[in-house]
Each structure stands twice: as C-alpha cells, then as structure tokens.
C-alpha cells in the first residue's frame, strides 16, 4: 500500500538526498507498522523518538493504512 513519509532533523543523514529534503512516497506491505517503516528506511530504531501518523503521535506498533501521512523525528526539544 502507498504511504507518504517525511523524516526530520538528524535522522535525515541516514537517507539518500531525495528522501532527506522533503516528503516522499513509499510502498509498504499491507498492515505494515511504523516499526516496519523505520526498518525499511534503514533508520536506527534507537534514534527514532516521535512518530506522527496524520498529525497524531502513534507508537511504533501502530499499523498503517492506505495513504497515511507519516512524520518521523529523533529526540528533539526547544522552547
């Protein structure tokens, strides 16, 4: 199934340039989880801290659906 993915901040260094600079489409098996996507993209699981699906934070065990929009962040903070 098709999903749309954005990867942010220090996690971008693990991706090829086209995927590092913005949103990209990804084909994943039906019922794939966020954890599966992290593995598919070659991101170190220990560096993934917050994952959004359609604007809501979800655990890595979350099972994705067609056209879900995913955002993957490392540990970040601000003020």
């Amino acid at each position: 199934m098709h999903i749309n993915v954005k990867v942010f901040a220090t996690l971008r260094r693990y991706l090829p340039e086209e995927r590092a600079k913005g949103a990209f489409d990804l084909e994943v098996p039906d019922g794939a989880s966020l954890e599966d996507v992290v593995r598919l993209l070659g991101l170190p699981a220990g560096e993934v801290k917050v994952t959004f699906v359609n604007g809501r934070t979800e655990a890595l065990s979350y099972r994705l659906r067609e056209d879900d929009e995913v955002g993957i962040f490392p540990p970040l903070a601000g003020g």
Partner: protein
Amino acid sequence: MAKILRVDMGAESAAFEEVPDKYRFARGRWLTSSLVVDEVQPTCHPLGPSNKLIFSPGIVTGTTAPTSARISVGGKSPLTGGIKESNAGTKFATMQARLGIAGIVIQGQPKNGSQYVLHIDKDGARLLPEDGLRGLGTYATTDALIGKYGNVGVCCIGPAGEMRMAMAGICFNDLENRASRYSGRGGLGAVMGSKGLKAIVVNSRGAPAVPIANKDLFEMGRKKLTSALRSHDITKPKGGLNTYGTAVLVNMLNEAGGLPTRNFSRGRFEKAADIAGEAIFEGNKARLGKELYNHACSPGCIIQCSNTWHSEDGSEAVSCIEYETVWAFGPDCEIGDLDVIGRLTWLCNDIGIDTIEAGGTVAVAMEGGVIPFGDGQGAIGLLEEVRKGTPLGHIIGAGAAVTGKVFGVVRVPVVKGQSMPAYDPRVVKGIGVTYATSTMGADHTAGYTIAPEILGVSGKVDSFDVKKAELSRNFQTTTAFIDSIGHCLFIAFAILDFPEGFEGMIEECNGVLGTNWMAEDVGRIGAEILARERDFNKGAGFTSADDRLPEFMKYEPLPPHNEVWNVSDEELDAVHGGLASR
C-alpha cells in the same frame, strides 16, 4: 556574606545591605518574586515610583555547575499588570554572582528625565548620569560599553524601553558580546526605562569564587548533572539542540497540526519547512560552505543551542533565531523567508523588544488590516515605527492586546495581556492549561508540558486529553524551582528522563548552600514561590476569571484537527486549587 545592592534612582544612591536571613537560600526567581511581594504594592502603577526592578542570579550561578549562567529579572509587569519574572543566559549573571550580590534592587525614579548607567565592580557600585547613550539601539549601546570597559557584563534597554513600551525587554550580552540575550517577556525593559536606567555594567575582575559550603557534595552533584546532560540525546554534544537549536521544533509542531499560523487561525504553515531549524542549518551550510553547529550563549554552557544565521554573502545576519522567534514572525505572520525573519529578529534585539510579543502583535495588526499577512517588508516597517516612537509605533509597542483593541480585532491570543507562544492550546491542551493558569500570563516556559505532550520527554501523554491540571501544576512548580537555581531550563530535558541528573541538581544546591533538600523540596519550594506570586496577583486585582483562554478558541476549530479549546473551568481552577495553602 551575600549582599543586596539597593539603588535609589531619585536619591542617586547605591548602597549594600545584608540579605535578610529569611532569604539566605533564595536566589533567582525565588528572590525576585519574594522581594516584589515584600516591597511592591500590587496596586502600584508599573511605570511609577513604587515599582521595583530586581536582578538576581541563581543559587549555583558563578560556580562550575554546567549550564548555570542564568539571571532572573523581576518586578510588576506593565504588560500583564501582575508579577513578572523573566530570565536570561549571560556572563552578567556569573559576574554578579561572583561579586556576591544576591540581588540588585532598582527603586524610585529620577526627578527630571535623566538617564544613568550603574557600574558595579569589586570596589563597589556607582550610579553615574549618562546622556550619551540616549536613544541608541542595544547593539550600539553594548558596543560602546564593551569598548570603554572591556570584557564586562552588560545589560541595557533600547529605545522601546526608554519610551516605556510594554513589550520592551532587557538585553544582556552573550559570550561574543552581542546584544542578544533577553529577559524578554512582560515589559521589564519599560520598568527599567521608567527608572531612567539605560544600562548596568558589571565587572567581576578580582572577585573571589562563589562560596560553596560542602565542596565534595557539590562536586558529586555537578558530575552527575554533567553526565546526564552529556548523555541525553537532546542535550548532548551534536545532539538535537547543539545541531539544530530550538528552531527544530517548527517541523514537529507543524506535523502535529499545532503550529499557530496566520494569527492562530490554522495549525499548519505550508512554508514551515523553509524556515525550520533544518533550513537554518542547510542555509548556513550553503552560504558558508561548511556545517555550522551551535554555540554557548553564556559561560559554562555545555548544551550550546544558540544558532547564528548568515546572509547570502556569508556575513553574520543575527544570533540567534529561536523557535519562538522564527514562529512569531514566520507562521504566525505567514512570512516564509529566513532572511526577512532574521532581519526582524535583529530589529527586535536592537530596538529592545520581546520577539514573541512583537511577532504576535504584528500578526494581530495583520488581522486588523494594518498590513497584509505575509508582508515581510511591512512587518519591518512596523518595527521601524516602534523604534521611531510614532503613534502607530506606540500602539504596536504596547503589545497584542492593546493593538487588537485599537483595531477592533477579536482573534487576540493573549492571557493576562501577554501574547501566547508557539503552541496552539487547542491541539496541546496541557500547554493551554499552563498559559491560562501561570502567574506570568501566557507563558510556555512557566510549565513546559510540551515535553511529555509532544516531545516524549518525561513520559508520553496524549496532547488532546483535557485532564491536564496535575501535569501543568507539576511542571509549574518544578520550573519555579529551576528558575531559582540559575540553571538553564533546558536541563529539564535530561533530569526528567535521568533520575541521577535530577539528584545531581539537588546535590549541587545542597553543596553550595549547606542545605539538606530532597526531591520533595523541589516541588515544595516551587509551590511556595507560586503561592506568593498568586497572592501578589490577587492583590493586583486578578481573579479566576483571568485564568482563562480567549473566548475565540472555544468556538473556532483549528484546522487540520479542527479541535476547539474544551478544557473545563473546573480543571483550570484545580491547578492552583490543588496546591497546599501557604
């Protein structure tokens, strides 16, 4: 023995006195708020003779404790009409601490519009008339004082403070002596201006080290906290903050649909990626030909989160562009250009105004039709009006609430007259509870529930859940304590996840003071500070009706999630209702 320096602007005197025994442990916000409560009538005019302005470094400031060069400034706020504390990271803090000055109290007013500079060094304090800095921006003022006195600690006001505008802040110098570290929120720069004080110069050359009661205990605590900061992914070298600074949150809040856009009418900005921390990092890389990591704002900081934005020709445009600033002038005003945002940041620094209030006010002015949304040059023009002190400039300089009133705007995102920072309460309900109930007005650092609600720090809670009274209260009390010890609030990210770091923070304090505080004392002391502040606000006329968010947030859904503000009044009143009375 620590001293208080009491400066009377009317009598032109500066004299030292002993710190009262009841405040022998109180520093930072604990001391500034205590002295404001003791010495300032809550009903006084904030720009009149009865208000006082108090500067106090924290408990461990000036020692080798990591990331501890913070100074609190307190008084009655001309913006909110309530008590105010706002703090900055700066060498001024460590220098005042090493001179053994627990608090500088500025009181009274000069009789005839004179301006002064206060000079403090190991030989004493002198309040000297100074007319040569009148009207100068903070960059020129700081340059002049550094040029004349060397590598000293400087704080000053810009023209906005001299004109007593309610969004005026107090500007401290950073490690490179830039005029860029702000006690920004709440208009304390206007209080300083109302007292005719243009600048303070602090020189600790020849001063002894800060006294430490139990050096072994302090050292043990220092090591634990340092280790926590160096190992946590957010605070460690080349970690999140050191690489991207706070502006890295733009993309995260945008993803969450909680990035207030177009004056809090939407939760996402289509140009978010163009102005986020990643874009700053990449932009610098393209313009400098190399990767630039962030720097320390003050002595002893090992987190080093301050960025520097560069112009196309590779020269430094401004330092630094924080998340709050890039949001206030970016998404909130719908400006998607980092060079414009950088220019607006520089102007705020120089004119001497709080970037959050300035951006929020420009957005309200846009809503009111003064200039269009997205008009970067128009925004620059409005800040120039502020600098010149034109009638429009005075309106803008008075903040978002006043500007909204003047232009008939309903969508005015303020609490207790202070502009909301960069998180929409309709999506992040806990920060909304903090905005509503903090003694400071709409203030994010006062109780930064964003940590568990969005960042996954100190646990993970659902940002949309409305039961947030206890969470906000715990963050508010812990923060009041951290605001008193001189550590940057960013140690919270490490100490909330690493218990050893939390222990280390307490051991540092016990080491310096000779106290026996335990974990429970953090909340107890924080709660005492808040209770005292709330008493002051009550005396100033505040009631629970002021612990509410603006009405429009209850009926305007925020796209994309289309949530409204639906936290009950009972939940809001439970925040402080849950604190044991003093």
